């Protein structure tokens, strides 16, 4: 069997999954977003759904909220993850245990993490109860609003908690592959620790950091469940808004739901591209 055909055959299962399930789903979503739903009498494709969405103030508030959630979470998680990786690559007593604990929450599902955040940080959660016990607050309402709050603190906490080990492990693996020789060389030539990190190590770990944080960004931008569980009733994160439109009793709102989903995919694609381009230029690949 010629090599090309064999490669193609071996790739076929993956291509079928991507082609049929992902691109197929995307295609149907595009069809529906332009209002092609023969079953309920919509047979003239149009861009009405996009126009309605883009002229809706709620859409922009949701967009701003989603951008805030994913940019802030990605930024905080990346900084903490790189810091943690720098510490973990050194040898120290108990490193095995610390590394294990660091990776532990990779196995915890997002939903379970969200319930944990709710138990700890809600106004009747563990910290509020502790505050009540030591006399800091008299009733639940006095505890600061950290979930269902306008700044999405609970959502960001959940994402940071969950994504730090993910980025951290990728970056750590890369640091270990690089070894300490390059930094040692920079230091022997007079670079200070920060300079060695900024101009030698950071550009070297950049590919891993970029890839993992771009995944985190795209995921947090498009994910539904955490903002649905820990978010405010209004404004809603974009995916939550899209789902609300999708479950609207009025069937005519379905095209708008699909348009919102297509826009989420498009915006997150553009953002990831811009993020990679920008960081490459600033840090120097």
């Amino acid at each position, binding site marked *: 069997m010629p090599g090309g055909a064999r490669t193609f055959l071996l790739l076929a299962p993956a291509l079928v999954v991507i082609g*049929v399930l992902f691109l*197929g789903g995307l295609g*149907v979503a595009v*069809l529906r977003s332009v209002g*092609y*739903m*023969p*079953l*309920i009498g919509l047979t003239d494709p149009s861009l009405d759904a996009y126009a309605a969405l883009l002229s809706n*103030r*709620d859409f922009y508030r949701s967009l701003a909220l989603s951008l805030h959630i994913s940019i802030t979470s990605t930024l905080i998680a990346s900084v903490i993850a790189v810091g943690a990786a720098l510490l973990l690559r050194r040898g120290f007593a108990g490193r095995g245990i610390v590394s294990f604990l660091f990776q532990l929450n990779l196995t915890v599902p997002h939903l379970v993490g969200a319930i944990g955040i709710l138990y700890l940080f*809600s*106004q*009747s959660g563990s910290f509020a109860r502790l505050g009540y016990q030591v006399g800091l607050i008299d009733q*639940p*309402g006095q505890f600061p*609003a950290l979930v*269902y*709050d*306008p700044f999405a603190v609970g959502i960001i906490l959940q994402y940071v908690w969950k994504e730090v080990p993910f980025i951290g492990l990728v970056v750590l693996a890369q640091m270990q592959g690089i070894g300490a020789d390059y930094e040692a060389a920079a230091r022997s030539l007079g670079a200070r620790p920060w300079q060695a990190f900024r101009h030698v190590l950071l550009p070297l770990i950049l590919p891993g950091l970029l890839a993992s944080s771009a995944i985190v960004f795209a995921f947090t931008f498009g994910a539904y469940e955490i903002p*649905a569980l820990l*978010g*405010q*009733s*209004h*404004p809603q994160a974009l995916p939550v808004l899209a789902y*609300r439109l*999708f*479950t*609207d*009793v*009025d*069937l005519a709102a379905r095209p708008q739901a699909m348009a919102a989903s297509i826009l989420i995919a498009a915006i997150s694609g553009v953002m990831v591209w811009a993020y990679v381009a920008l960081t490459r230029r600033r840090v120097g690949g």
Partner: protein
Amino acid sequence: MAKSIRLAAALGLMLTGPVAGDTADGDALIGQDWDTIIEMARGGEVNWFLWGGSDTINQYVSEYLGGILEDEYGITLNRVGLSDTVEAVNIVLGEAEAGVTEDGSVDLIWINGENFRTMVQADLAWCGYPGTLPNNDLIDWDNPSIATDFGVPVDGCEMPWNRAQFAIAYDSARTEMPPRTIAELIDWVDANPGQFTYPAPPDFNGSVFVRHVFYHAAGGVDALLGPFDQALYDEVAPRAWEILNAMEPHLWREGQTYPTSITQLDQLFANSEVAFSFNYDPSQFGLAVESGLWPETVRSYGFADGTIGNTNYTLIPFNSPNKAAALVLQNLLISAEAQLEKARPEVWGTVPAIDLGAVPDEIRAEFDALPSHPSVVAPEVLAEAALPELQAEWIAAIEQGWIENVGR
């Protein structure tokens, strides 16, 4: 375009593989001898999509109903829990669009109101079969609150399962004098800031709470009955939004956010963050107390100016492949025995949808002897001041109006 949809449907079939659609042909079942239908259903399965937010209801469905289906008919009941019934509607709608006309994944949906209207509007319901069910004799189709579902005629497209009427729950150990009317509630919220909230519509229970305020703003429900009237809506709605917006700064979290589900409101109530919860199905209060989530001092009541009631149903989609098994399940659901079991406070405690005048005497006696749960207001008491539901167009308009004028 039609070609691409046929292609998508063909691809879908290739991926899932053909599944035997034994009893997808509904016409062959209507009027068929009941024993024959049971034989057609035997050994098969039935996929029931229903709201899954209550462990006790789930247990009744999976263990009691599922047990009878398994033991007596050899039918496997697959309970598919939903957080919102519209999810099941979307599945059937998507299948219909993809041309799946007899191999659908949904055999039965617990449904009413707007979702029923959607199913009828898109011609997705299988109709005309109720006379085939032996237990159809227990249903009083002359009762308008059963023969119409939120103003939409049922017309043999669904079978009643439960009746429900909205009630309010409070903790008698914390709140001595709960407000007895919507007007009193509005004053109570002013006097007790931060202690009240309601789930944001389109949540089912939040939506019905907003309708109570809407009725209050309209000066009674009578004018609102009948088809949607834009002029009347434009007259009443601003008054309702004014009341709710005036309430907002005194709500939980100063009204900056609302719970997004009744489950969230129940948790706030359980944690003493708010003083009231409410539910379209008051038996839920008893279940929450029995499961230890709420204190035993919880009591419930209806407003003196009335609370809204409805009937809920089960519906078989047009493309259900297991219609015979779905019929057997529906017949079981409205049997006197299953309705009695469901009426027991420790099981579910919901109000039967069958006509108690038509059930056998010994079962009637058991219904009469049912103990009531101290936390659940008696259905007879609630029924003294019952308000009808509005037609689905009204409800959709009020929900949308709330989102635009109050929720943002």
